[in-house]
């Protein structure tokens, strides 16, 4: 079995986790059944939607520019990888709520797990995606550009994602929730917008000189 197929199957298995937890919560806490059903269905629905969109368009965006997906295997890996993390982000609070409902842990601990650890995992996703960002942006090298500048931009975009993800995870571990929420949101929004702004500035010819 190829690594891509293994990752794809692992992602499908992970997507089943929120479904199972949500179904159990529907029995244990039926008052909020609509919430559990939403949590159960959001990922499979997103997965199908993204899969169909990638098939139909065959393109993805980065920095606001349309970039052809050169390797469909890479696209499938990226989707599976994102689904594994999204499953974790949904499954962790569901598991905490279920454990609370069954009296296995304190409500305060369930709250802490549901908020803090979910966001720490989300920060981890940013770190890992940031690491691979220069590889994803490689097709930009085909644009009319100064290649060395382009490589610097690709690496810069990756580092911004990594640092934003690390800062986000550390903030959620270290700060009180009331502070971690706004500051973390600001950090992650800046982390998303900064590479995009860099690439847009480059595309408008503000950075580097065309080599040909």
């Amino acid at each position, binding site marked *: 079995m190829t690594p891509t197929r293994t990752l794809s199957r692992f992602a499908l298995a992970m997507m089943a986790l929120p479904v199972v937890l949500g179904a159990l919560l529907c029995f244990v806490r039926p008052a909020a059944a609509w919430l559990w059903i939403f949590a159960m269905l959001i990922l499979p629905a997103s997965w199908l939607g993204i899969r169909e969109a990638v098939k139909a368009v065959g393109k993805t965006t980065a920095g606001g520019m349309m970039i052809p997906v050169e390797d469909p295997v890479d696209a499938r890996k990226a989707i599976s990888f994102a689904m594994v993390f999204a499953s974790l982000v949904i499954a962790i609070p569901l598991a905490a709520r279920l454990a609370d409902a069954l009296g296995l842990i304190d409500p305060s601990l369930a709250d802490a797990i549901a908020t803090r650890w979910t966001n720490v995992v989300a920060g981890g996703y940013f770190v890992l995606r940031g690491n691979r960002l220069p*590889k994803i942006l490689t097709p930009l*090298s085909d644009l009319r550009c100064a*290649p060395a500048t382009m490589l610097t931009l690709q*690496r810069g975009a990756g580092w911004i994602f*990594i640092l934003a993800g690390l800062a986000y995870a550390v903030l959620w571990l270290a700060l009180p929730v009331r502070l971690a929420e706004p500051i973390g949101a600001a950090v992650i929004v800046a982390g998303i917008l900064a590479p995009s702004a860099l690439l847009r500035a480059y595309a408008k010819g503000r950075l580097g000189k065309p080599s040909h």
Partner: protein
Amino acid sequence: MNKVFKALSDPTRRRVLQLLRQGPMTAGELAEEFAVAKSTMSAHFAALREADLIDARKAGATITYRLKMSVLEDALLGFTQAFGLEFKDSMPEPPVGDLQEET
């Protein structure tokens, strides 16, 4: 990751990556920088491609290589360059023959 470590362990392959930092280069241009047989260079390119550190584009008889490194791989390259790390277990040489002569 093992493929990446082994690809970065060779000084010639590290030099290829350094050259590609300046921009995409053809197989012929890269081969001119080294006093080794083209078949040997072909094996080095194959090792780098297998580790997903470079991307190859074929246009007619010309193959153009460009850098395709993650942030961690880039940092590892800098680290191995700085400390000259080499791995003892040698990577089995990939099959030769994917380098085409430039016209």
